[in-house]
């Protein structure tokens, strides 16, 4: 078990290091930020001066080490537009995105997993067909469209929910549904297929043969076995929700890091974009490590052997 944990952590560390390096390379490929900082009529000397001040005239590998050194000290650079540490700006917007992602995750898991269970255990029923329709819709309607549709129906026509902004709980409902819809479908499909797969196994028949009802076998044995692939999906989906927030926050004028990312890209405020990219990557890596630990909790074959 310790061995297993150590392996996962080392893998996560390597993955994160790879991400840092790729982000650095991409930032460099996108050009010299000095030109963005100087006034339009700046002389060549002024530009060279500033470039020297910012250290962009040093060899790439020195800049790379400097960048890593900065990251180690949580120094992610300064926003070129607002002249304050990029991390502070992102941190001030992060709670909104966490709220939104959490809301979307509640929608995705809260509806997706029960829907998957019902679809797997009540095959051929009317309720299964209704759920299938919902799931297919959630999967196939693009996020920006579903967001606008929701606003049109519940915000503009019915006037039940606010069309944008944050603060009240009611403002969270539509963006959570719009953001969570795709994840919800993924959870529903994975849960369904995983349970159907488990239902065909011998231990289900054996469970019924000892007098358990099919429902009891599902609750006591099938769900836990079926959970393993769903955990994998959950880990990926949390990262996807953060990444998906970029579009939804723009549609709903939600002041989170997604909106910030779009604004920063438009104003070419690379330091902020960099922090957001690193943050989302870090969440991906972190959730997959967590998933590995949850596997071990659920499955004794991992916990006891490796």
């Amino acid at each position, binding site marked *: 078990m310790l061995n297993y944990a150590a392996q996962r952590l080392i893998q996560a560390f390597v993955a994160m290091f790879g991400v840092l390096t790729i982000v650095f390379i991409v930032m460099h490929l996108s050009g010299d930020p000095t030109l963005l900082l100087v006034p339009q009529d700046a002389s060549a000397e002024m530009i060279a001066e500033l470039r020297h001040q910012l250290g962009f005239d040093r060899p790439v590998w020195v800049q790379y080490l400097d960048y890593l050194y900065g990251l180690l000290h949580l120094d992610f650079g300064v926003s070129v537009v607002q002249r304050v540490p990029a991390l502070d700006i992102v941190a001030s917007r992060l709670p909104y995105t966490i709220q939104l992602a959490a809301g979307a995750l509640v929608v995705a898991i809260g509806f997706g997993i029960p829907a998957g269970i019902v679809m797997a255990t009540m095959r051929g029923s009317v309720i299964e067909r209704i759920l299938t329709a919902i799931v297919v819709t959630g999967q196939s309607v693009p996020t920006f469209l579903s967001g606008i549709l929701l606003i049109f129906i519940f915000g503009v026509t019915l006037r039940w929910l606010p069309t944008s902004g944050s603060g009240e709980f009611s403002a969270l409902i539509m963006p959570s549904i719009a953001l969570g819809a795709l994840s919800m479908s993924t959870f529903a499909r994975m849960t369904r297929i995983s349970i159907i797969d488990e239902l065909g196994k011998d231990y289900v028949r054996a469970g019924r043969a*000892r007098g358990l009802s099919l429902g009891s076998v599902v609750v006591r044995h099938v769900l836990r076995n079926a959970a393993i692939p769903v955990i994998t999906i959950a880990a990926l989906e949390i990262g996807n929700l953060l990444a998906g927030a970029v579009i939804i926050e723009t549609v709903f004028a939600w002041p989170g890091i997604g909106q910030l990312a779009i604004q920063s890209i438009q104003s070419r405020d690379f330091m902020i974009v960099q922090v957001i990219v690193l943050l989302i990557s870090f969440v991906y890596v972190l959730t997959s490590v967590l998933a590995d630990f949850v596997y071990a909790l659920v499955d004794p074959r991992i916990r006891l052997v490796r």
Partner: protein
Amino acid sequence: MDVAANPLLSVDRLTIDIAGAHVVDEVSFTVAPGKVIALVGESGCGKSLTSYAMLGLLPPAARRTEGRIMLENVDLAVISERRFRKVRGKDISIIFQEPSASLDPLTTVGEQIAEAYRVHHGVSKTEAFEKARQMLVDVGIPDPGRRMYQYPFELSGGMCQRIMISIALICGPRVLIADEPTTALDVTIQAQILDLMKKLVAERGTAIVLITHDMGVVADIADDVAVMYAGRIAEIAPVHALFREPKHPYTALLLASVPKLDDAPKADLATIEGMVPNPSEFGVGCRFADRCPLATDKCRLEQPSLVDCGNGHRSACWHIDRLAEIRKVAT
């Protein structure tokens, strides 16, 4: 066959359809307390379906269309699912061919045995757990206290089959169905499991329906044998009578195909020509006719029923009197 003793379980003209074909066709047999009946046949002859029907666990595609399954005076073929749940595991239990796959990999074996007890008896977890531990002692598992907390993947196949037997027997069922219980196990473990089953039958008076294709296992443990071919019983007889003097060409050829110790070392294995027919190709005549050396036109046109040949020996063949010809060919 020992008809005199009151049969505990009697299957009467059981017919099961899949896609319109009678994959189990008018199968009848009985088993008395403390006796073992073996259902023997090749894969796909309907022996496993028969056993699932006895538990009301037929796969969705299969449907019982006729026949009764009497457990004493209750017809299991017509009772509701709710009532059947009270029978499964309590009156009729089953052990399967793949013991490891038949256990939930994420639940300790102790919990799974205790669960089988708790389904039918409203007792506390602790009490069921103690009962389960006692059961492990009965099936000869060393160090039961520790085994209780182990997971199926930590146990060998033979050990898992003992766990399955514990689950099957913890409620003291009157009928145990053993569906190829030793097929997936090593030969030495096979013998141990068979001995265990014999012991339990003797001690508890459990009736066993043994599903197998292994004639060695049949000779070892069964009292009666029903030989099935393509969904029908070809021959049914007390075990010694069947081995000494088979009355159906299929049985005769089957017995001849079992390799013997005194065969010449490089001798060809005796085989039965041809293949078991597909259920969609079952004709009007005897289903074995295409592979039978004795077959005549009558065999191809008319289905033979089981006829009594004395001493509880029954065979479904038009040419019982010509069987000597096969024995000559076979030896």
